[in-house]
C-alpha cells in the first residue's frame, strides 16, 4: 500500500504482496526484487512472521510437504491446547486476545520473529545433509549425536545411535535431520537460553493465560486434564497438518514421554511472566475461584469434610492475610513476594484448620471421635456430630480404591498413538512394519482381556471424589456438625482443643534448599500424614509441597507467639 513506484513492465501502480514478502504487480504479475518494509511501529515483520499470521499457505515442495519452523510448530500446539480449553468451557478471549499476545511477545523477546534481525537467520540451518564427505569435512558442524543429546526429552540410545549412523550413510541431499527448517539450529543454540520453548512450557503458557483471565482451573487440574487426554500434549503431532512433516530432530522437541511436573510448569510460568515484562496480573479477589475461600470450599467438599469447617478456613485466611489481593495477585518480577500455588495453599489451610480443631497427634482426634460417637447414640434429631473415626474410615477406603485405580492406570498408560513417528525417511518402512505388528498384537491380546476396552475418554470432571448426601449409609459428612468439638466463649466459637503443635519451629530458606521445611513421614503423626496424603492424591503433588505451605501458614498464624518466645529466651539468657 505504501509502495508507489510504477511497475517496470506495465507502469501500473497496483501492487500486491507475495508470500515471500516481495511485491508483484497485480496487473501483469511481474515480481520485483523489492520487499516490503513494514511501517508498523509496533512490530517489524519478517518473512517468518508473515507466514505465521497468514496461516500455512506455504511454498509446497514436491512431496507435498512444506517448510516450517519450530516456533510455528509450537504456535500450532498452543492453538490446539487453547481450543481444547475452550471446549472445556474457558472463555474464548483467552485464545484470541490473551494467549496470542503472550506468544507474540515471547517471539519478539526471544528474537525469533517480530524483530529486525531474527537470531540465527544468518547461520546456515542444518536441515540439508549432502554427501557424507561434507558432513565429515566440516569441523564446525556439531555432530548429530551431540544435537540429539541437547534435547531434554528422553529417547533411547539405540534409536538415537541408529538414526545418527543411518544419516552418515546418506548420500543424497535430502532433508533428513529434521522435517522443520530449523530443527537442528533450535537444539543447538538453545543450550544457553533458559527460556527455550519446550512442550512443558506450552502448559506454562496456558496456565499463565488461565491465570490472567482468572479461569476456575487450577494448575493441578490443568495437569490432570493433560494426563487424562483432554488437552493435547502427548502425540501432539497428530494435530499437525499433513504438510508439516515431523521427523528426525523434531521428534526430540515435540514428542513427550513423561507426565508434566507441577513444579516445573509452575516455575517456568513465573520465569516466563518476568521475562515477558508482564505487568501485574488482574486482581484475585474474594469472588475469584482461585481465592482460598473458594478453593477451600471446593476441597472441603471433595474431602468429604463438614461444611462448617468453611467458617474456620475463612477465619484463618483472614487472620494471616493470605486472602489479600496483594498477596494473591501475581506481580511478575517481584522477588520479594512468595509465588502462590493457589491449590496447594487452599489445601494447606484446611490441614491447619484440622490441626487446630482436632490436633492430629494420633490421640486427641480419636478421643474427640469417641465423644462424638457417644453423643450420636443419643442424638437422633438434627445433624449428627462429626466423628473423625468414621470419616477416616470412609475416606481412607475411597482413597485406597482410587489410588489402586490410578496405579493401574499408570501401568496401563499408552504413550503412542496410531500415527507412527519417523526419525528419517530411510527407516520409514521399518517403522511402519513395527507399527503394524504392534497394532496386530494389541488386537490379539486386547480380545483376550478382561474388561471392555473403553473407546471414549471419560468426561473431564473437576471432582475426583464425590459424596452424595442422599446416601443413607451416612458416608457423606458435608452436613455433619462440629458442635461436639467447639465451645462458645464471649459470643465466639472456639475450639475445645487448647493445644497446637508446629510442624517446624524454624523455616528453611526456600531459595537455598527448595523447601520451607523437610517432610519425612516417620517424624509426624499418622493422622497428619493421612491428611497430607489425601490432598496429595487430589492435587497430584508431593505431600512435601503441601507441608511447606502448612509451615508457612503456621508461622504466620503463630507469628506473635514465636516472636515473644524468642524475646523471652533472650531475656532469660541475660
Amino acid at each position, binding site marked *: 500500500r505504501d509502495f508507489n513506484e510504477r511497475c517496470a513492465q506495465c507502469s501500473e501502480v497496483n501492487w500486491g504482496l507475495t508470500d515471500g514478502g516481495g511485491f508483484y504487480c497485480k496487473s501483469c504479475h511481474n515480481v520485483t526484487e523489492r520487499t516490503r518494509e513494514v511501517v508498523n511501529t509496533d512490530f517489524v515483520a519478517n518473512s517468518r512472521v508473515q507466514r505465521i499470521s497468514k496461516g500455512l499457505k506455504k511454498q509446497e515442495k514436491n512431496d507435498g510437504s512444506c517448510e516450517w519452523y519450530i516456533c510455528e510448530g509450537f504456535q500450532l500446539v498452543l492453538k490446539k491446547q487453547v481450543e481444547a480449553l475452550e471446549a472445556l468451557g474457558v472463555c474464548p478471549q483467552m485464545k484470541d486476545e490473551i494467549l496470542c499476545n503472550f506468544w507474540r511477545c515471547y517471539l519478539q523477546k526471544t528474537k525469533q520473529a517480530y524483530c529486525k534481525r531474527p537470531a540465527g537467520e544468518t547461520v546456515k540451518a542444518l536441515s540439508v545433509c549432502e554427501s557424507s564427505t561434507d558432513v565429515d569435512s566440516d569441523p564446525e558442524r556439531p555432530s548429530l549425536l551431540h544435537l540429539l543429546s541437547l534435547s531434554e526429552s528422553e529417547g533411547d540410545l539405540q534409536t538415537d545411535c541408529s538414526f545418527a549412523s543411518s544419516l552418515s550413510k546418506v548420500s543424497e541431499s535430502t532433508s533428513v535431520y529434521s522435517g522443520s527448517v530449523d530443527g537442528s539450529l533450535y537444539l543447538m543454540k538453545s543450550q544457553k537460553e533458559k527460556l527455550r520453548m519446550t512442550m512443558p512450557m506450552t502448559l506454562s503458557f496456558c496456565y499463565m493465560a488461565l491465570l490472567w483471565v482468572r479461569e476456575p482451573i487450577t494448575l493441578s487440574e490443568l495437569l490432570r486434564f493433560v494426563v487424562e487426554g483432554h488437552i493435547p500434549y502427548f502425540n501432539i503431532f497428530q494435530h499437525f497438518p499433513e504438510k508439516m512433516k515431523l521427523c528426525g530432530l523434531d521428534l526430540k522437541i515435540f514428542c513427550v514421554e*513423561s507426565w508434566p511436573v507441577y513444579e516445573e510448569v509452575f516455575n517456568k510460568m513465573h520465569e516466563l511472566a518476568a521475562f515477558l515484562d508482564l505487568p501485574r496480573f488482574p486482581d484475585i479477589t474474594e469472588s475469584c475461584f482461585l481465592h482460598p475461600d473458594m478453593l477451600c470450599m471446593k476441597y472441603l467438599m471433595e474431602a468429604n469434610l463438614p461444611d462448617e469447617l468453611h467458617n474456620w478456613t475463612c477465619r484463618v485466611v483472614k487472620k494471616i492475610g493470605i486472602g489479600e489481593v496483594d498477596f494473591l495477585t501475581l506481580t511478575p518480577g517481584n522477588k520479594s513476594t512468595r509465588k502462590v500455588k493457589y491449590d496447594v495453599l487452599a489445601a494447606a489451610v484446611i490441614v491447619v484448620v484440622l490441626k487446630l480443631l482436632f490436633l492430629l497427634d494420633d490421640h486427641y482426634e480419636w478421643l474427640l471421635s469417641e465423644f462424638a460417637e457417644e453423643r450420636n447414640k443419643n442424638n437422633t434429631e438434627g445433624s449428627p456430630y462429626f466423628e473423625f473415626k468414621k470419616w477416616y474410615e470412609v475416606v481412607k477406603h475411597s482413597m485406597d480404591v482410587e489410588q489402586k485405580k490410578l*496405579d493401574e492406570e*499408570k501401568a496401563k498408560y499408552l504413550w*503412542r498413538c496410531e500415527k507412527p513417528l519417523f526419525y528419517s525417511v530411510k527407516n520409514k518402512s521399518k517403522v511402519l512394519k513395527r507399527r503394524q505388528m504392534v497394532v496386530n498384537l*494389541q488386537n490379539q*491380546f486386547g480380545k*483376550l482381556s478382561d474388561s471392555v476396552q473403553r473407546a471414549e475418554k471419560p468426561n473431564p470432571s473437576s471432582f475426583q471424589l464425590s459424596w452424595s448426601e442422599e446416601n443413607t449409609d451416612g458416608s457423606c459428612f458435608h452436613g455433619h456438625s462440629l458442635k461436639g468439638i467447639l465451645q462458645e466463649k464471649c459470643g465466639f466459637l472456639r475450639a475445645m482443643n487448647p493445644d497446637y503443635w508446629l510442624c517446624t519451629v524454624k523455616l528453611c530458606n526456600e531459595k537455598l534448599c527448595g523447601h520451607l521445611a523437610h517432610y519425612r513421614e516417620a517424624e509426624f503423626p499418622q493422622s497428619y500424614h493421612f491428611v497430607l496424603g489425601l490432598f496429595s492424591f487430589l492435587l497430584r503433588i508431593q505431600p512435601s509441597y503441601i507441608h511447606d505451605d502448612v509451615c508457612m501458614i503456621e508461622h504466620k498464624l503463630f507469628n506473635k507467639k514465636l516472636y515473644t518466645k524468642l524475646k523471652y529466651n533472650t531475656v532469660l539468657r541475660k
Partner: protein
Amino acid sequence: SSNEHKLNFKKSKETCLSYIQDALLQKQWKRAAEFLTCYIESLEKDYSREHIGPSEMIWRIGTEILWHHSQSSIKEFNCFMEQMKTLGVKRYLKVCLEHVFHLLCNGQIDEAYQNLSLAESWRFGEQTAIQDKEMKLIQAYRGLLDYCSWSKQKNILLEHGEDGFSDLAVEQEMHSYFRKAAVNLKEIIKIPGVWDIFVKCYVDLLEFYGDHNEAHQVLNEYAYNSKFPANPNAHVYLYQFLKRQGESKKSLISALKILHDIVPSHELMIDFNTMLQKSKKRKKRRLGLEVIFAALDYAGWKENAKAWSCLARQMKQIVISEKHLDWIKQEWNSRKDWWPAFHFSRYLAKRNWQENKSLSYEKALVAGILLGKDCKYFKYISHQGCKAQLKRFRMLKKFVNRHSPVYLRISG
C-alpha cells in the same frame, strides 16, 4: 500408596511388567493379557541396553498367556509364534524350537516336523553361524522325530513279520528314517551336554542294526568323557546296555562304580551290591558292604525290604565266617550315632511289624548284630515274631543270641 506423581515411559512399562508378572503367577490370564496389551507399544522403543528387551518379554509372556488362556486357540498361538519369529533375528531359531516344543506337547507331531524342517533350511548371514547351537538342536529334534517314525515302521514290520508277510516298501521307509535320524542324533551327542533321550534313541537304532561296537563307543563317551557334565543316567544306560550284551560281571561292576559315587541312593545299588557280594575279590566284597550301607543312609530306602535283605545277607555271612568283622565296624563307626534313631526306634519296630513282616525280619537281624540282642528293635521284633510262632523269627533269635559276642567286638 504411591507418593510418586511423576511418570515416564520407562517407569510406566516397568510397572506394567510387574502387574503382568503378578497376574501370571496367579494364573489370571485375562488380566495378564490386558496389561500385556498396554506393554506392547514398548516394541517401538527397543531398549537394547537392557538384558531382556521388550521383544523377548512379549514373546515369553505372550506364549504363556496364549498357551493357558481358555479362549485362545492353537491357530492363534501359531500365528503369534510366526510373528515372534520375525521380531528378533538373533532369536529366530530359539523361537522356532520353543514353538516346536509346544506343538509336540499338543500332539501335533507333523506340524512340529514341518517347522523343524523349515527352521533347518533357514539362512541369515552371520547369524547362521552364531546360532549354530540352536541349529544343532533343531536337527537333533528332527532326528528324534525321524526316530519315532522309524520306530513306527519297525513295529509295523514286526507285526507283518509275525503274519508272515514281508513289506518291502515299509522296510525301505524304515531304513531311510534310520539314516536321517542317525545322522542328526550322532551330531548332537558329540557336543558336551545332557542328551539322554537322543543317546537312548541312537543306541536303540545302533543295536537294532547290529552295530554294537558303535553303540558301546557312544555310551562310553557319554559316561566317561570328562567334558560332558556328570550324568547318572549315562552310567545307567551303559550298564543296561552291557547287561543286554551279556557282558562280564567285571565290566558291569565297573559301569556301576561311578554311579555309586554320584548317586549312592540309586535304585541300581541293589544290583550292584548283589554282584559285589558274590565276587571272589575281597576288595569287591568290601565295596559291596559300603554300597549297601550308603544306600540305606537315605530316607527313601528305609522301608526297602530288598535292600535290607541284601545287607542282612552280607552281614550274616561275615558274622558266620568271623572274618572281616572290622568291615562292619568301619561302616558302623560313622553311623552308630544316628542309625539307631533313624532305623531302629521302638516306634519303627511297631510300624514295621504291622506293615511288613519280611522287612522287620531283615532289619531285626541287622539290628541284632549291630546293636546287640538287648536293643529295643530286636527285642520287640523277635518277641512279636516268637509270639506269632513264626519259625524264622525263632531262628533269628537263636542266631543273634549265639553271636552276641560279635556285637561287643563291633561296638567296642
